């Protein structure tokens, strides 16, 4: 089965950033995204998602390496300093390259 390698960018951050991240992703060339509600803890302390300001999301974007890098850099530059943001990149393989 022929597979094609892509990057998976995962951004875990405050729910307040959802709208902004979705726009950024589209602008920077991502064909889609997947979001799930999460809770957790990091340097910013625990975020249990019990109410508005305490909610976190995990945003997944599968895309070309360059798009992923641009998006990751943009996210850190724009939100990294003042928001609770964690992100990582992963190498994945997809079957329908045209989709991503």
């Amino acid at each position, binding site marked *: 089965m022929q597979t094609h390698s892509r990057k998976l960018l995962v951004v875990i951050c*405050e729910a*307040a950033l959802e*709208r*902004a991240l979705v726009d950024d992703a589209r602008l920077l060339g991502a064909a889609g995204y997947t979001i799930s*509600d999460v809770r957790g803890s990091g340097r910013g*302390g625990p975020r*249990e*998602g*019990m*109410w*508005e*300001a*305490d*909610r976190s999301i995990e945003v997944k974007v599968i895309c070309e390496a360059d798009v992923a890098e641009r998006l990751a850099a943009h996210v850190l530059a724009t*939100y990294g*300093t*003042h*928001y609770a943001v964690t992100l990582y990149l992963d190498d994945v393989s997809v079957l329908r390259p045209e989709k991503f």
Partner: protein
Amino acid sequence: MDPIVLFFLLGVGAKLAKSDLRLPEALYETLAIFLLLAIGLKGGVELAKVPFADVAVQATAVVAMGLLLPLPAFAILRGLGRLPRADAASIAAHYGSVSVVTFAVATAFLTKRDIAYEAHMPLFVALLETPAIVTGILLARIGAIGAVRWRAVAHEVLLGRSVVLLLGGLTIGALVGAEGIAPIKLLFVDLFKGVLALFLLEMGLVAGGRVADLRRAGPFLVAFGLIVPLLFAGVGIVVARLVGLSDGGTALLATMAASASYIAAPTAMRIAVPEANPALSIGAALGITFPFNIFVGIPLYLHLAQTLRF
């Protein structure tokens, strides 16, 4: 003592005791949506009865109050508290705005004592949410107004959940009137107090979780959270008197002025002034001022409203 505030204590206690009691987030959202809609509906039904002119005058005064309240707060936070501009501006916005639940507790408090109040007060809650947020952003961005993502902010504050539901409820209530509401009265009016009790349980769990923030925030912010509500309540009383509100209405406007937002303001400031540390504003608003108001403030403001005459 009013049972509903005991639910708040139960929540705080459970949280501090590290109980695994946790209301599902969907329940929290549902209760919030319900309260906002119900408050709006109730106010709207009455709004229809009041002559427009009177309301217009009162509304203008309330909006003006909302726009100005952050200024003294900001001065105190910068001058005495030596807080960074962004933090001072953000906290000022929270305190200039209003806490819907504090308002609801106050109305329950008045109802229990059969004290009349202008039933269209919920309109003022809706009107008070936004102005202070705008002022707060301006205070944070003096010299760099351009940098503000106004469209995003406007969207947040004008189309935020609470404003939409409050104004939506007010409009529906005003359109259908008392007997139009009748068939849904059981849910939105009669069940209100019980739902409010549940919400206060949730608020207690949340507030109990912010205590750590307060330790970080330090004594100044604690004092701020106790004293500023009194100052603001005073302002509220004066404004209420000027526009000729009843004693009950005066106590409610004082409560609104004294209360600090933890729904509309946090979301908006997070987007407009991200460098402000949300733990400070939310910690003070939820950990100090909210409990202070429901236990000490509301009875006090009513007493003042009934005694201070001009």
